[in-house]
């Protein structure tokens, strides 16, 4: 079982490294089409990465080693997420813990690394971005914990791969009110965590409205490439988790070549489909005012709390 789980983890890692830039390409392409543009093609993020990785970074005077190490820490945390989350397969092995608390703390590692990168050069916008980022993170993490906790009650464990496995065996759980409330809360939390609309605008050029973008303003060349890859991987992994929680079909539970291939195709399709939905949804959304972001996130926290309460009333 452990050997199989390691194989699945390696497959997930390779797949996500391939799918994450493609996901961003698809999101941007769909958005461009809806705006009446032609769009640069779905492979443009690959070209961007290739170019950025070939450029030597320019560091601001007075910046420290954080500017070099921080982006790598973000990529590492995102890669760990890709290994730990049940994306291609939901095999449960103690060596690869997909426990709820492990996942959230791995995610926090990346959040803190990114915030430190923003602070390092000592610019006004970087510090502002980091402070906003930490505010959002502090509001989002409890929601993620609570939402998945609500999902864990029918499965009787907080291990995500077992939760997904339980939903696959008994699909009636998926459309129960508890699950629906928790999924909505989780979806809002993921949007906030990955810096999408309506919490943050990923394509803004206005420094005063930035969150994620403000923190990476001082990064250049290779450092910027790692920061981009880190956030893309995180978005792809979390969308994959959401996809597997909503529609767990296709995920690998018994190890054969065909089931692994099916798992790869299924999770890729789920991630890209969610990406298209996200992109279409974003065309219709405006960024909410910063002071209303806590209201939105408090709303999602309330939904998660309702889900937990309901799960005790129902069960």
């Amino acid at each position, binding site marked *: 079982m452990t050997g199989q789980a390691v194989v699945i983890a390696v497959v997930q890692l390779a797949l996500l490294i391939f799918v994450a830039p493609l996901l961003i390409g698809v999101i941007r392409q769909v958005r461009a089409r809806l705006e009446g543009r032609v769009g640069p093609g779905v492979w*443009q993020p690959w070209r961007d990465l290739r*170019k950025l990785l070939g450029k030597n970074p320019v560091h601001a005077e007075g910046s420290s080693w954080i500017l070099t190490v921080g982006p790598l820490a973000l990529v590492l945390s995102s890669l760990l997420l890709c290994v730990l989350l049940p994306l291609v397969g939901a095999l449960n092995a103690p060596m690869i813990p997909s426990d709820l608390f492990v996942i959230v703390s791995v995610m926090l590692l990346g959040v803190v690394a990114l915030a430190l990168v923003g602070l390092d050069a000592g610019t006004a916008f970087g510090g502002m971005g980091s402070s906003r980022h930490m505010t959002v993170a502090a509001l989002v993490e409890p929601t993620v914990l609570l939402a998945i906790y609500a999902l864990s009650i029918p499965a009787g464990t907080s291990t995500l791969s077992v939760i997904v496995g339980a939903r696959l065996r008994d699909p009636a759980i998926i459309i129960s009110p508890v699950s629906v409330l928790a999924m909505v809360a989780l979806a809002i939390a993921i949007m906030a965590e990955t810096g999408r609309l309506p919490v943050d605008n990923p394509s803004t*050029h206005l420094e005063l409205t930035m969150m994620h973008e403000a923190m990476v303003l001082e990064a250049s060349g290779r450092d910027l490439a790692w920061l981009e890859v880190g956030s893309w991987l995180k978005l792809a992994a979390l969308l994959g988790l959401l996809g597997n929680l909503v529609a767990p079909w296709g995920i690998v539970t018994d190890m054969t070549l065909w089931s692994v291939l099916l798992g790869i195709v299924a999770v890729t399709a789920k991630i890209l489909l969610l990406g298209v939905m996200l992109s279409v949804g974003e065309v219709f959304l405006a960024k909410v005012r910063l002071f209303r972001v806590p209201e939105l996130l408090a709303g999602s926290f309330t939904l998660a709390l309702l889900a937990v309460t309901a799960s005790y009333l129902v069960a």
Partner: protein
Amino acid sequence: MSTTGLARMITRVGRIAEPAPPAPPLLAGAEVFGGSVDVRFINAGGCNDCAQEVMGAFGPVYDVERYGIRLVASARHADVLLIVGAVTRNLLEPLLRTIEATPAPRFIIAVGDCAITGGAVADGYGVVGPVSSLVDVNLEVPGSPPEPAQIVEALRRMTGR
């Protein structure tokens, strides 16, 4: 605008972008970018007419983004600096510092007659000189102001697409 109204407008309008003209030859040295160029726009003291035309080039009609060219918010992310206007005394130092902050390899495009020769304001008391007299310019787009199509063509020479 309501959601349905916006959806109806999207389906009615369809594609706004004009058909792409044939690709101009790649500028020597720009092959390092491999079809992806990030542009930082700098107004070094122009009268905003060239700036308007640059915005037009990045809008949905000329849609320069389809060739892999994007505007970015920081000089640290940029490969190409797009400079308009004759350089004024106040903006000389910020301009030089912006260029210094841009990682190599970097290219500089001077857009408009003011940036190339100084144009109508060349003898102004607040003007240090045209961009080309202060920094090495790789590509010039003449015109006062140039049309967006000319700016698009200069940018396409950077990606070769």
